[in-house]
């Protein structure tokens, strides 16, 4: 019985941390956000060097064949440095969808290219995870898709999309397919790219080799665990920044970090967020080793971190006082990253309803 990270996992997470510290500085993030770069090329290349896009892809397709816990450790670092690059959809959800439900030909066609970072994949399952709004929905018929889907993740830089239809089936659509209209959505978080896809009889290749329902659930669970981990990283960065700031900023002749009013806010943030790390580790471990538990644990991790994330984001901003409210300090990139992750793939209320349903508590 060992509930903790291996030495290899610690080293891997540390190397991603050191890389992102260099390449995903606040200045770089700001530049990417202002230019609405969906994939900050230099940051992306640094991650490709480390093998991040192929993390979960089998070695036979050129990936590293690692597990979801490893991906969660990287997601945490990407959140910590609000890295403006594709990951949750492209490196986690899409490879899992293709590996679980793809034919040998589909796997051969897409997994090596995703693993090498040559292409990026977006994932469109918002209507299947959060519910349909704005009359969104995709109908599949005769290998063609019609309708529209919102809140497509890793949208802007995607070369292919994994799209969920109204019946829970998944399809691969090329970004340049005829009849496909891409509409970028502007969210508060300019370090992540989301958008809308409109289909007018668009050619799609169905991911149909396997249990579609179970496959979609796996994709959703993995995505939820990644968003939770992203918030863990972003949240801790905000706490670290708040603590550092409170030790420098002086008022009434003292550093504000010596006032209990400020210390207690920091202690509350730390003690609320830290148990989330264990919940994420457990959910990610369950994904690979106790798959029956994964849907429930993913729903718990997502809702827990959604709520804690919101608390940390506002409280860390308050600790920074007026400076926290400015654009200059850039703290708002973390605030907004946490805000987006909370709503994607099911807000806390939605995820908790899923958790209740999974336990047979919804009549």
């Amino acid at each position, binding site marked *: 019985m060992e509930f903790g990270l291996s030495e290899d996992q610690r080293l891997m997470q540390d190397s991603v941390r050191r890389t992102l510290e260099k390449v995903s500085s606040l200045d770089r993030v700001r530049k990417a956000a202002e230019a609405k770069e969906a994939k900050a090329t230099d940051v992306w290349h640094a991650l490709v060097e480390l093998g991040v896009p192929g993390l979960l892809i089998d070695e036979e397709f050129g990936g590293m064949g690692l597990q979801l816990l490893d991906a969660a450790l990287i997601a945490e670092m990407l959140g910590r440095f609000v890295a403006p690059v594709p990951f949750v959809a492209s490196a986690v959800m899409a490879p899992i969808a293709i590996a679980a439900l793809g034919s040998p030909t589909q796997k051969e066609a897409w997994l090596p290219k995703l693993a090498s970072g040559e292409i990026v994949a977006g994932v469109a399952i918002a209507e299947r995870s959060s519910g349909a709004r704005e009359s969104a929905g995709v109908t599949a018929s005769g290998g063609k898709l019609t309708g529209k889907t919102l809140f497509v993740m890793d949208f802007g830089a995607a070369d292919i999309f994994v799209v969920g239809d109204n019946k829970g089936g998944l399809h691969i659509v090329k970004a340049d397919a005829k009849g496909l209209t891409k509409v970028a959505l502007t969210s508060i978080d300019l370090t992540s790219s989301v958008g809308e896809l409109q289909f007018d009889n668009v050619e799609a290749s169905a991911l149909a080799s396997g249990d579609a329902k179970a496959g979609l659930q796996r994709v959703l669970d993995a995505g939820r665990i990644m968003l939770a981990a992203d918030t863990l990283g972003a949240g801790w960065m905000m706490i670290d920044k708040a603590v550092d700031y409170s030790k420098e900023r002086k008022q009434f002749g003292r550093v504000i970090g010596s006032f209990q009013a400020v210390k207690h806010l*920091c202690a509350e943030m*730390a003690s609320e967020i830290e148990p989330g790390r264990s919940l994420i580790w457990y959910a990610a471990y369950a994904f690979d080793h106790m798959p029956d538990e994964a849907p429930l644990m993913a729903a718990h991790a997502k809702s827990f971190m959604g709520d804690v994330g919101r608390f940390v984001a506002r409280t860390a901003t308050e600790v920074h006082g007026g400076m926290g409210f400015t654009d200059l300090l850039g703290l708002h990139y973390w605030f907004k990253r946490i805000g987006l992750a909370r709503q994607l793939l099911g807000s806390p209320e939605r995820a908790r309803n899923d958790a209740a349903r999974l336990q047979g508590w919804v009549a």
Partner: protein
Amino acid sequence: MDLNYSPQYEAFRAEVREFLKTHSKSAPGGFGVSRPGGNVLAWQKLLIAHGYAARTIPKEYGGFGAEPDILKSRIIAEEFAAAKVPMGMASQGISMFVPTLLEMGTEEQKQKYIKPTLNGEIIWCQGYSEPGSGSDLASLQTKATEDGDDFIINGQKIWTSTAKQSDMIFCLVRTEPDAPKHEGISYLIFSMKTPGIEVRPLVTMTGHAEFNEVFFTDVRVPKTQIVGARGQGWFVANATLKHERGMLGDPNQAGARLREIIDLMHKETLDGERLIDNPLFRDRLVQLQSRVLAMQFHGLRLLTASAKKEDAGLARLIVKLQGCEINHQLAALAIDALGELGVLYGDSPHLRAYGSWQHRYMFDLGLIIGGGTAQIQKNIISERGLNMPREPKTVKA
């Protein structure tokens, strides 16, 4: 990460199960607040003989003498909980005084006190808090003045649970009135039957006297009854407080409470509809389930860190604050879900669960305050966990 137990541990688990199958019929129903009876003492002896209580206490002092193995301890706890069989006694004497004596006591003290304490023959109470010294415990004023080979003790203690049925007290007293506050305290142990001791029950908001006040008037205690050096009592006591903080906020207790509420929400109805079918209460239930699970996994993480002798740092410091708060919120949910029925108490008709949800809701508030208040916990978390500066000392007028 590997949540499986190795074959060695699975074999140990089988051993524990076998023991429980054979012996659980002789287990007492539970441990009340009164003095342990014959069946409790017999059960305690049986558990020690098999290594399920006093497991790592050396044999020479009446323990089982096993090497510390945190996983085996966990397996024992898991199996006893699953079988709903009470573990060994967890009195303040066993969980706080014995570890302190092992660390700081003289050989003679260990020989004299540990074995009968483990066996439940000597019951202890803790004399730390005073009316004027709660969070600032080191400011305590109960004084011990020298008189030949004895100390004469005068003063008052408060929040002394089990004082009425205790044989002995481990007590902090000021022996060096002129020394700085942390350096003037000594840790004394003496009989509760010593002349000059008066115990008064302290009724709390729950309506029960879970605690007592203890008054000392010219209580004569031989100087040999000191643990550790004179004036070093604060540091001796801190070894004990470390053991107490570990006992508060146990996530498995919250897990058991959560299961009770799940059960309650399936059985109780409102307008003919089960409470679990009410989306608002259900949302609160799942929200608390997330927090309980997070703390249970957090507990596994701390267990692994302990087994590897790693310092878990901040992760360990948050347990009391989080654990007590979650327990309190669980009780609040049960009360809210029961509506007006949730406020019934005492011996009222329509009472649910013997009124225990209200009792727990109130008593838990006591636990949030006791053993280091939530605010003191936050000071500790920010200072030791986040390296934030201490509050500047105010200058005395």
